[in-house]
């Protein structure tokens, strides 16, 4: 038995003139229908590449460039996608699995009306007439909360506000009732007030349609209330994974601490943030030996024998369904979290 979405040891490597870019380097996770998974990480951590790989879009816009090397398994509802016929995967795209992108302005074609773009998405998978498809588009726009949908359906993307565009994008993604919805930074390009509305919308729709949802973000705050599970990625690998409550309550990995520390909090002054993640993301070509996070980790010296610099930590279960990849012992993790980190958050 596999989970509804079951990713196993996924590797996505891009050959370049400078060397092999290991964007995703051995990632596994599972997601059931009706569940929401939040994938969190900074840019370059491999979270977007992961989502594109699931969609079969990792080679998109790569004409003539060297093809990405991809290995592992991606099971969706009992079908393995990587080995499947590309045209079969194409037919699943948009119907079984759909995606919402970060910037709805650039993700929508500027020359076509919103309606046309939704109709197109619908008709490619449904053998219906233009009128029926248009009715469906209006219905979807109405569902995502766009006022006067029968009029706005003929508007162009540039005539919408940012939030409206993202609603339209969501309407387009959900027009075929997909089982899996991947939202890649769905709120990053939006105003703070609009962000909450969009997140609410996604949650409502998920409940209504019962889809599996993957939300990809660099901001733990986005998924705090939405996700059932959270997966933290760093340098193309998972560094911590677990139920959202557990992860927020007792995070084990110093990088997760950093992310928590970077969360914008309305109740505190930004100046007080104590655990920013210093330094820059690791090279994906020449990965630091040992723990990829060690050059930036304030606690790299806590484990003995230089182990953080020589041995790559494996994901180990640190609690019920809670996994982390850190050389520190469970006691050390708990102590530092409780004594040094948590009080400052």
């Amino acid at each position: 038995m596999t989970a509804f979405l079951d990713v196993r040891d996924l590797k996505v490597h891009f050959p370049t003139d400078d060397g092999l870019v290991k964007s995703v380097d051995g990632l596994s996770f599972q997601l059931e229908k009706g569940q929401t998974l939040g994938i969190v990480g900074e840019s370059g951590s491999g979270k977007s590449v992961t989502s594109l790989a699931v969609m079969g879009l990792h080679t998109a816009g790569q004409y003539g460039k060297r093809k990405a090397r991809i290995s592992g398994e991606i099971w969706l509802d009992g079908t393995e996608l990587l080995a499947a016929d590309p045209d079969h995967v194409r037919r699943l795209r948009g119907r079984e699995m759909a995606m919402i992108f970060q910037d709805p302005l650039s993700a929508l074609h500027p020359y076509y009306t919103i309606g046309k773009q939704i109709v197109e998405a619908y008709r490619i998978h449904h053998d219906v007439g233009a009128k029926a498809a248009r009715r469906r588009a209006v219905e979807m726009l109405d569902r995502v909360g766009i006022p006067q949908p029968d009029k706005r359906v003929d508007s162009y993307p540039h005539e919408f506000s940012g939030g409206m565009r993202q609603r339209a994008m969501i309407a387009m993604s959900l027009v075929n009732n997909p089982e899996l919805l991947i939202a890649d930074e769905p709120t990053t390009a939006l105003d703070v007030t609009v962000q909450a509305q969009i997140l609410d919308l996604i949650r409502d729709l998920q409940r209504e349609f019962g889809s599996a949802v993957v939300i990809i973000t660099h901001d733990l705050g986005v998924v705090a209330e939405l996700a059932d599970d959270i997966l933290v990625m760093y340098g193309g690998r998972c560094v911590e994974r677990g139920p959202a409550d557990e992860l927020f309550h007792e995070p084990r990995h110093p990088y997760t601490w950093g992310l928590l520390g970077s969360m914008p909090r309305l109740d505190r002054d930004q100046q007080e943030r104590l655990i920013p993640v210093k330094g820059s993301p690791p090279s994906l070509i020449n990965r630091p030996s040992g723990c990829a996070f060690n050059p930036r980790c304030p606690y790299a010296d806590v484990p003995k024998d230089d182990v953080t610099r020589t041995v790559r930590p494996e994901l180990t279960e640190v609690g019920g369904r809670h996994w982390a990849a850190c050389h520190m012992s469970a006691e050390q993790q708990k102590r530092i979290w409780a004594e040094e980190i948590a009080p400052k958050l």
Partner: protein
Amino acid sequence: MLAYLIRRLFAAAVMLVVIIMVVFCIFFLVPEWAGVDIASSFVGKQADPAAVAAVREKLGLSDPIFVQVWEFFKGIFAGRTYAAGGEVTHCAAPCFGYSFRSEQAVWPVLTDRLPVTLGLALGAAVLWVVVGVAAGVLSALKRGSLWDRGAMVVALAGVSLPIYFTGLLSLAVFAFGLKWLDAQYVPLEQSFTGWLGGMILPWITLAFLYAAMYARITRATMLEVLGEDYIRTARAKGLREHTVVGKHAMRSTMTPLLTMLGMDLGALIGGAILTESTFNLPGLGRAILDATRNQDLPIVLGVTLITSLAVLLANLAVDVLYAVIDPRVRLA
């Protein structure tokens, strides 16, 4: 939209007047600065001053420039009357005057020659758009492949080789060497196949240059567009690749091409001088070339007016089409 069109057409009319005045100024002032009397080139070898003066009077060269400009435009809309040396001629509107050299009315010359140039420009345009865009799209889709490199080398050659070289070469090979076609211009109304036989080489030669440019631009634009987010969205919808490229990517790639096409067509209608000369096509380009050499002002003015009009209309068409293609552009 209508208000926009009216305003643009009005601006175009003003522009035309300015262009004509500039042509007048170049024609009259430049020789004057050089201390040269235009009229003296219209009399024979034994030019006595009285004859020169009479010619100057006849050609209307002694009037102030603004009077000449006024007469010129009056002639177009209301016709004008020429009176010189006891000869009175009325020239009905649209009157572009009479050639200084051959004495034929300019308007029939223009209407006779415009179809040749139009046929050349439009025929070549169809060819270069089809070939250039197809080659550019293929190159973009197969970037780095042997095809792409080959096509881009050919395109570079096309862009850098002068028309009179490729033109002479094509004549030497196809007309004189292989004798596949005669390559002499035959008017369309005389014989369709003859016309085709005369136009094919000029079309190919001209299209080669432009197809090369269009292929390069298409390739670059297509590559840029294929990297756009909305192309990824189109794929994410489950669209077939040929729809993604042929519809979504092409639509965006078309925009800069359309602008270019409008400008190029407009310019070609006035400026296919080299092609027309190489292949002896009796079009507007050759007319203005000969007229410039012969100091034949009325022909120069007529061709300039027609071609400026063509350029302005082409630009207007581009603007309107642009608004049709790209909804973000508003004509106001």
